[in-house]
């Protein structure tokens, strides 16, 4: 068993790229992703677990990365908004839907909302409106009033063939 330590070497995979880094035990996962790995697509909003803009998917489960220590993610496979689009720049179906339905205005919350939407559709491919609203309950958007976000997700929920 390892002994208690102020820092630890961790290995994580972020959007398909594997990293090994020393990290202080007190470092939040969001700060690690943004500042140590320079993946700044994931936003750091309220820092109190309320706004959800830092949402990422860790080993298949969406979490708020400001509410997890980086050391706790040791060995994890992490998906962020930066991994959604294809390498050629073409957008992920969820991103396309957000564009088509104008599901963002300032865009600050969007990286988190997209990951919550991805998780929702992975765990429930055909959510109804109520399920969509419950699915994005952990994400605050102060621009849209959620109407277009719900429409965008609904458009994917209705398509049997869409793979997310």
């Amino acid at each position, binding site marked *: *068993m*390892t*002994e*208690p*330590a*102020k820092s*630890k070497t961790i290995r994580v995979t972020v959007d398909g790229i594997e990293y090994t880094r020393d990290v*202080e*035990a*007190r*470092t*939040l996962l969001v700060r690690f992703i943004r500042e140590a790995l320079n993946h700044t697509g994931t936003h750091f909003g309220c*820092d*109190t*677990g309320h706004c*959800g803009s830092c*949402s990422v998917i860790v080993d298949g*489960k*969406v*979490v*708020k990365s*400001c*509410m*997890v*220590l980086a*050391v*706790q993610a*040791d060995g994890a496979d992490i998906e962020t908004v930066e991994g959604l689009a294809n390498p050629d720049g073409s957008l992920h179906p969820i991103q396309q839907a957000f564009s088509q339905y104008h599901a963002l205005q300032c865009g600050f919350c969007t990286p988190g909302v997209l990951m*919550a939407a991805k*998780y*929702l559709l992975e765990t429930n491919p055909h959510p109804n409106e109520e399920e969509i609203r*419950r*699915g994005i*309950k*952990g*994400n605050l958007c102060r621009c849209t009033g959620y109407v277009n976000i719900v429409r965008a997700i609904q458009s994917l929920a209705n398509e049997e063939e869409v793979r997310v």
Partner: protein
Amino acid sequence: MALLLRELEYVRPDSLEDAVRLLSELPDAGLLAGGQSLINVLKMRIGGYSTLIDISRLRELKAIEVGEKSLRVGAGVTYDELMHSMEVSLHRPTLVDVVGRIADPQVRNRGTLGGNCCYNDPTCHLPPILTAIGTVFEARGSHGTRMIPASEFFVSYYQTSLGPGEMLVALHVPKLKSRSGDGFVPLSVGGTDVLNIIAGAATVTLAEEGGIEEVVIVVTGASERPIRLESVEEGLKGTAGQPDDADRAFSLLDLALLDPPDDVHASAEYRRDMVPVFTRRALEQAMKNARRGIHD
């Protein structure tokens, strides 16, 4: 505002035994499970530890076992795992409903049953319902295992009866008996299920002819700990549980029992007034579920 955590040490033991040993050996060590409350406490520096012992990956804390009369649910089971447990759906369906309402998917993916109980936040869903259904808490320390009934586990605001070096390892949840049902109705800020002003919980067992045989009614947010409304329970026993019976029973409510806080979310007066309203709704829900025989 960037909230930096105070410098601390971290260790992730590989076994429950090691975790218990570290907890008793290390000075000022705390347990980190899902962290959905603790990380914020550390950020705000309301409290702190020199060392965090990460128990979130311990398999021993993840099991859900079905016993003859109760379910043994590991303290490290997350809300999301509980929501998807067939065993819990079958034997205490109300827990699946209640846990599914907690906060949001992100919190449910990390937050654990044990963490929530040990934090004992008076605004949370689990303490009242777990008290109402007669949960027994299994604690492990260097001196062995101790079983603590819910009525003794939740001591006061953010306090449990766990001693130094003791950790919660499992919750023993009685299986729902036949002709029984549970109810849980919170009054939460903005109806968000995030912060309860008060919460009513009830469990009821009906006699074969349909009258109330056993009933437990609990409220949180009206005192420093979940409290049972025993005078109301006594008033209900043996009745048919009709609205007239409930009127009479709730008129027996001992208001002296209530010592609600007065804060920005609700005045003490409002909380006191809402106690009979929300506990009665919980009772009605429990009655409905008991009459139906199964939860939907």
